[in-house]
């Protein structure tokens, strides 16, 4: 396979937008429309110029021909679009698909959006029975991550302090974010006393359940220049990976598709982990960013506990992660908020702005670590 590295920097995120997060009492079409309108306003683009609308399916509430409903709400007639089901990896994947569609001349300006309302609607999807294994009591999204979390501890003696470090960084970064749903900082002591949900997962290992919507506008860098878009952020690298094996049939529980996905994204960007200034890592559960750091190559497998110790991943450290609070503090929305915070960091307008941030890696992940997508943004 020959990677087309000329794609590096050829496309940009021209605008970003999001709704409030929390318990909103609104349907998902409305939330998507609000997020898209905000992203278009941020880019300074008229809705009539949009000819592609790529959506991630709302996790908690699936509808047939969903893409058409959102397009109708926006009053647009895109040539390309629809709703894509790949779990939390979908947002970055859809940005990649938008980019490829534009590159082949099929469309010019794409909206990529996601919204869901499990907080005011139904969160049953997160506690659902998992096929015939539910006869053994195998329910929920959390349990699969608990199985992986424990296997990581078994193989690498990963201490609870490493998991706490992820939760504490997210909560510290979200504490001052006026949009964040959970704004209370977390101490290591409080983490250790947090009740088990599915042991080894404690409450503070688990992301929030949230209503909200977020969207980005994708176009070519050339088009952004001709439209005089301010603060367009170049896409330097993208990659994807999927293991389709369910947990029980998977060869290893302690390595993820972040390996393949990250390698392609870094190759496309012509970068290495040491070039990254700030990272937004999908944190549905604390084990996820820990393994993503290893699998992207920020440290060796099994050495992530040392890597995250001593505040390195907090604001002011060598590699701040999830600077707006991530899924553990800002909103449990699966992933688009991380992309938006990456854009803010490269624009230089983040609330917790990393000084001289020239490169940000964003990870999206879905299923029980089934799917992964990586995005590298840079100036």
């Amino acid at each position, binding site marked *: 396979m020959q990677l087309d590295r000329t794609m590096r920097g050829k496309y940009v995120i021209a605008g970003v937008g999001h709704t409030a997060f929390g318990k909103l009492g609104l349907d998902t079409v409305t939330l998507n429309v609000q997020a898209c309108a905000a992203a278009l306003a941020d880019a300074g683009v008229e809705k009539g110029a949009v000819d592609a609308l790529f959506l991630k399916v709302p996790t908690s509430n699936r509808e047939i021909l969903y893409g058409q409903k959102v397009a109708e709400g926006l009053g647009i007639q895109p040539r390309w679009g629809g709703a894509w089901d790949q779990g939390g990896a979908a947002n970055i994947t859809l940005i990649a698909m938008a980019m490829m569609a534009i590159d082949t001349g099929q469309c010019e300006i794409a909206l990529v959006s996601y919204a869901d309302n499990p907080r005011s609607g139904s969160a049953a999807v997160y506690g659902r*029975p998992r096929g015939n294994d539910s006869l053994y*009591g195998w329910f929920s999204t959390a349990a699969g991550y608990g199985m992986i979390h424990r296997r990581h501890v078994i193989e690498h003696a990963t201490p609870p302090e490493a998991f706490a470090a992820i939760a504490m960084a997210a909560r510290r970064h979200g504490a001052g974010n006026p949009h964040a749903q959970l704004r209370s900082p977390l101490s290591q002591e409080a983490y250790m006393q947090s009740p088990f*949900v599915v042991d080894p997962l404690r409450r503070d290992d688990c992301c929030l359940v949230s209503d909200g919507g977020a969207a980005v506008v994708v176009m070519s860098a050339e088009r952004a220049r001709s439209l005089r878009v301010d603060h367009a952020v170049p896409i330097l690298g993208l990659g994807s990976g999927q293991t389709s094996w369910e947990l029980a049939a998977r060869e290893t529980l302690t390595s993820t598709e972040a390996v393949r996905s990250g390698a392609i994204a870094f190759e496309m960007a012509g970068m290495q982990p040491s070039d990254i200034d700030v990272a937004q890592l999908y944190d549905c559960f604390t084990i996820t960013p820990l393994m993503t750091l290893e699998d992207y190559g920020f440290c060796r497998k099994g050495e992530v506990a040392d890597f995250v110790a001593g505040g390195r991943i907090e604001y002011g450290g060598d590699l701040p992660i999830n600077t707006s609070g991530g899924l553990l503090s800002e909103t449990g929305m699966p992933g688009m908020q991380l992309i938006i915070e990456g854009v803010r960091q490269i624009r230089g307008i983040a609330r917790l702005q990393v000084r001289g941030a020239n490169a940000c890696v964003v990870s999206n992940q879905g299923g029980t670590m089934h799917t992964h997508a990586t995005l590298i943004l840079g100036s």
Partner: protein
Amino acid sequence: MSSDLLKADIDAINAPYWKGLMEGRLLFQRCSGGHAWLPARALCPTCLSKEWQWQAAAGNGRILSWVIYHHAYHPAFKERLPYNVALVQLEEGPRLLTNILASNDALAPDLAVRLAIDTSAAQPLATFELEDSKPPVAVSA
């Protein structure tokens, strides 16, 4: 409680698996290429072979990982809290999610476990007990 939720979804492909459990046997599939797997499939997920047979597991396995539920996502499990679900690797290769019929505190990585199916249950399941907890249960092949 919707008891329907806790009925196995049995179809033409997996029916022998569930029938096997009623008879006290844990069946898995093995193709002519030697690949072994669970759960039941029409084609070998490794080589897509249609040439496969059901085989009975000898019943020996080891624990790869486990979780302990402190919250019941279904009323049927409320009285069992805190209960375990473990990932067990059979000596023949396939892995399955199961319950270890032992104290949660006794669970440990790589611990040897032995198949222990309660055939008197309405729906017998492929549960396991700790290898050294009692003499091996006779499992007919």
